[in-house]
């Protein structure tokens, strides 16, 4: 599903952030991406979602080499992904329903069809009763769940979350991880970047550990 082969990435005027990273993620897997802040987790996720291109090496997403894609087809590739951003990137000028509606509108789904799917997504994250609320009135955990609802509403095959539990207290973090587990169980490939030790230690899933731009240890796989 996702394959990185000797991937290097450096931004102009900075040190190399990724220094030759290779790994593979199978379809339907849930993988944790761990490492300290600044280890290159966000960069790796951006490469996965074709937001950035590698300086060298290849990134294959479902057999498509993203370095070789024309810019015009990248939007269509991105629609395969559900993205949960570190800073939510919610739109604060509209209510929860309209926030979740955005990916569907981009896909050209509107009307009743869209409304049904939006409510289903809100229901899944437990925010169905807040569809008219503005995001600013939600708690941190609720905002995070809203971001997840937006990421999954167009039923992506890959869900990528960057520090989804970053600023949440433990019980909220557990709830969120439970959500990701649920998505994996229905066949979605899930990649979660985190530096939260609790999350990592409690997870039965494979973890990729990044340190100073290198994939340091492949922590052993627990039975899942």
């Amino acid at each position: 599903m996702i394959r990185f082969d000797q991937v290097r990435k450096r931004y102009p005027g900075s040190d190399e952030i990724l220094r030759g990273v290779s790994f593979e993620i199978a379809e339907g897997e849930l993988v944790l991406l761990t490492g300290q802040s600044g280890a290159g987790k966000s960069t790796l996720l951006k490469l996965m979602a074709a937001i950035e291109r590698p300086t060298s090496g290849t990134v294959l997403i479902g057999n498509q080499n993203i370095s070789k894609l024309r810019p015009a087809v990248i939007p269509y590739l991105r629609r395969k992904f559900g993205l949960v951003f570190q800073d939510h990137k919610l739109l604060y000028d509209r209510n929860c329903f309209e926030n979740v509606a955005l990916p569907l509108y981009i896909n050209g789904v509107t009307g009743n069809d869209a409304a049904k799917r939006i409510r289903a997504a809100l229901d899944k994250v437990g925010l169905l009763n807040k569809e008219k609320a503005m995001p600013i009135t939600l708690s941190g955990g609720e905002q995070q769940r809203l971001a997840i609802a937006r990421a999954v509403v167009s039923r992506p095959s890959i869900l990528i979350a960057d520090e989804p539990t970053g600023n949440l207290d433990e019980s909220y973090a557990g709830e969120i991880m439970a959500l990701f587990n649920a998505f994996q169980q229905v066949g979605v490939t899930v990649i979660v970047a985190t530096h939260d030790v609790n999350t990592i230690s409690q997870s039965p899933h494979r973890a990729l550990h990044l340190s100073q731009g290198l994939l340091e240890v492949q922590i052993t796989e627990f039975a899942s």
Partner: protein
Amino acid sequence: MKHRLNQHVQAIRLVLARMRRSLSSTLMICSVIGVALCLPAMLYVAVDNVSRATELLQGDAQISLFLKQDIAKSAATALGEQLRRHPSVSEVRFVDRDTAWREFRSGLATDHPASSLEQNPLPDAYFVKLKQTDPESVSSLQKEMQAWDGVELAQADASWIKRLYALLQLGKQAVLALAILLAFALTVIIANTIRLQIMTQREEIEVSKLIGATDQFIRRPFLYAGMLYGGGGGLAALLLLYAGIVSFNRSVAELALLYGSDFHLHTQWANLSLVLVGTAVIIGWLASYFAVGRSLAKLQQAG
């Protein structure tokens, strides 16, 4: 097909909703565009009507043919026939030298030096009214008749027509120049408005791009916004123009009445509205296309 149509309907709905939310500023922009469009349109109507009025005045463009003193009676009659047969001539009046002399002398005081002349100095003359009244054909006819045998002098009183034509030509050029300048101004106004809107929706655009929106998807509502601003401005211009013409027409009709004419300002509304609104819509589209293109390129760099 249905999917594509749906995308456009969705974009238009979005734009209309945004415009309704900021109704006063939308109306303001439309009226600014309206005023800008109205100026060249008014000038055009003025020039168009002046040129129509001159056509009415030129109904009596004529050439005076003065014949040679020693011309034979038969030759003069033959010339008259030739004139009547000429395709550009509508009316011919002959004044023989004796009649002209009598008329001339009757108008003079008895002690005028000319009344003491023994001999008649005047020639026979034809006064010719023409079908075509534009300066080029008048002066070419004049040249043609001047070359005829027996004609001493062919005189066309065309110089004032020429001047008027030149002035009208100048007016038409002024309309064009003003239209081009204001089209440029409109482009800037609309592009700037769209640019400001893009800035306020920057977050939405960024997020949309991240989750797979194509450039067309992002551009579409702004293109419709530009076209709607243009169209609204065009309609505002038509309203202003209509109000202007109605109020002017009253004074114009009064003035025309003094000259015994029923002249009034006349406009081809169908054509004018089509051109005005059509141009405004096209300018709106172009301006927002530029604005969005530039902003998207900037976002691309930043992201």
